């Protein structure tokens, strides 16, 4: 979960990372009650990067200009996102702009401190010069000082910049972050540092133990809604909230085949195989694997029935492929669930449904479904053949 800039800065303030005086603006008229002296900067609060270049950050000198600028920013989409709020912040004249971040290195399985002395908008051009320090074991401030030296900092900046990195590391641990980033960290002629922007990504798996961060997010009037995808876009629309499908992440595509699988790896492999065989998915749903408390394995059949309900309502759907793999007990339960689901429907199947249950041990389950003797229900053992059949039927 990403935090917006003003939320990230709230966290910064809690641990003593210096931020500018600022005020949250929910509506342009809020600027009339502004408590920060002009000149100020107005910043669009969206999750997307590149706000400055897109025109979502504007400097203003007085209330009239501020209201006009705020109106413009509220109506300016940045990578498809409209801001729900703006941040009004005191203007700051930095002498230099640095870059600092803390992330996890998944292959070394250790936190990494990142830093560059060329931060701000220059960062992308110089990203190859980002310095790294691996935190190997218990953290101690010398790791942050090592980063400051690698960044080429000297004198008092070593202490002041490493102190910020140390506080960022503290946030990283306390809140289970995937990323905490300050870009730019401004340095003024007096050598004082200031976090001018902040990016915080909270690890989704850890959200359940940080109710304060979840509350911060739901405190927003609404989470920003993505703009409609341009026509012909090949990427699926993410459906975060699918009614009736708790904890599942359905995907929509522009094709005509519905796909239901159990497990992430099998879902990805099935999508790849459908693509190779010339099929085009309309919708895809991973019903969950075997190791999750969010999606308990013993409730797979319940999710299967809900998943069928959902996928059969997909637009442009011409056929459905069900690829489920498991032991005998799972296959028997799945076959019973499919039979139950089909019997409950008021109308007979309007589309071809290809059920693939793999393995010799699934013979009884396959026979049970075949015995239903439904004209549009096809039961198969081989994955390649099931995919070919589903594609052929959905294109017929």
């Amino acid at each position: 979960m990403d935090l917006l800039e003003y939320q990230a800065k709230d966290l910064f303030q809690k641990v003593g990372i210096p931020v500018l005086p600022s005020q949250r603006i929910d509506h342009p008229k809020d600027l009339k009650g502004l408590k920060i002296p002009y000149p100020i900067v107005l910043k669009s609060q969206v999750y997307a990067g590149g706000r400055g270049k897109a025109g979502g950050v504007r400097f203003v000198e007085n209330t009239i200009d501020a209201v006009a600028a705020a109106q413009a920013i509220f109506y300016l989409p940045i990578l498809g996102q409209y801001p729900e709020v703006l941040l009004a912040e005191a203007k700051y004249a930095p002498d230099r702009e640095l870059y600092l971040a803390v992330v996890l290195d998944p292959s070394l399985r250790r936190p990494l401190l990142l830093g560059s002395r060329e931060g701000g908008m220059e960062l992308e051009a110089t990203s190859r010069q980002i310095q790294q320090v691996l935190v190997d074991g218990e953290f101690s401030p010398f790791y942050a000082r090592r980063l400051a030296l690698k960044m080429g900092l000297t004198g008092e900046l070593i202490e002041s910049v490493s102190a910020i990195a140390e506080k960022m590391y503290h946030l990283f641990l306390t809140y289970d972050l995937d990323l905490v980033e300050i870009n730019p960290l401004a340095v003024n002629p007096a050598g004082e540092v200031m976090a001018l922007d902040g990016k915080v990504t909270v690890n989704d798996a850890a959200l359940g133990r940080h109710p304060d961060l979840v509350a911060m997010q739901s405190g927003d009037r609404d989470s920003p809604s993505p703009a409609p995808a341009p026509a012909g876009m090949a990427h699926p629309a993410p459906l975060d909230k699918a009614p009736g499908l708790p904890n599942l992440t359905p995907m929509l595509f522009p094709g005509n085949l519905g796909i239901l699988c159990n497990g992430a790896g099998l879902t990805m492999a099935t999508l790849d195989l459908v693509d190779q065989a010339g099929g085009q998915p309309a919708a895809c749903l991973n019903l969950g694997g075997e190791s999750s408390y969010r999606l308990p394995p013993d409730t797979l059949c319940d999710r299967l029935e809900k998943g069928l309900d959902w996928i059969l309502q997909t637009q442009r759907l011409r056929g459905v492929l069900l690829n489920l793999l498991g032991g005998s007990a799972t296959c028997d339960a799945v076959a019973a669930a499919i039979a139950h689901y089909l019997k409950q429907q008021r109308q007979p199947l309007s589309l071809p449904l290809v059920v693939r249950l793999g393995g010799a041990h699934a013979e009884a389950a396959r026979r049970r479904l075949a015995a239903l003797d439904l004209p549009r229900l096809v039961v198969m053992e081989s994955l390649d053949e099931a995919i070919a059949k589903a594609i052929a039927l959905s294109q017929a």
Partner: protein
Amino acid sequence: MDLSAHSKVLVQGIAGALGQLYTGRMQAYGTSIVAGVSSGQGGQTLDGVPIFDMVEQALQSVGPIDATVILVEPYRTLDAALEAIAAGIRHLVLVTEGVPPLDMVRLLYAAERTDTLVVGPDSPGIILPGQILLGTYPAELYSPGRIGLISRSGTLTHEIALHLTQAGLGQSIAVGIGGDRIVGSSFQQWLQILDEDDQTEAIVLVGEIGGNSEEEAARYIVEAIDKPVIAYIAGRTAPKNQFMGHAGAIIASLVAGWGSEIGTPDSKFAAFQTADIPVASRPSDIPHLLQQALRV
């Protein structure tokens, strides 16, 4: 790794949702489950297995334990694993999905200092077909034989095992290293184990998009592995930035411009190509590629 049909096994979280489901299945396969742990349930039994409140009590009662299968909730996994390590258990299988990455960092630091093997989290575990099952494997899809199978997945591992079993290619060891972003044992560790294992003649590596473990594995195979390796990679057509169900299987760059090439299918295919490792285009091609490699 030192596991066999005689290994004595503990189940942590035995009275929980996953423990109740999988303990009996492991026993039915012949795995010697000597004790279970579920805090507050001490003194009871499940499937004939005595339950204790703490790991150390289990050891006092049943003697040394070779491996533990940890089936507790995600936020209790770190504690359960540290408890097992403190009690001297050196093989840990973490089945549960969704352990916070920073918990894994702490756990793996403790594991490295004690030379403990940690498999997972979000893992189907380890199976030595015909001998022992630690985790969630559906036994029917696996058969004893000479192929080592390592994977980041659960059900996809079973899919590949089914193709191998149907082609008469049984498995020596199958392991799922886990679908979460931070996992314990790596592909390299298991490649080394399988390379040294007398029962294993060839290796199938099942990777997926996200992270760089396939790239590192490809480099390691060139340096250190003598047995034939066949690779398969899932997620070639998975949309960018889409959550597919494994926290680790997502192509995304958190830091602008830094590591933006990490995790793409192209990068993984290229790594195996450079290492001269055949990549199967579909699971059903794997048996054929293995037979070819074994004939050479």
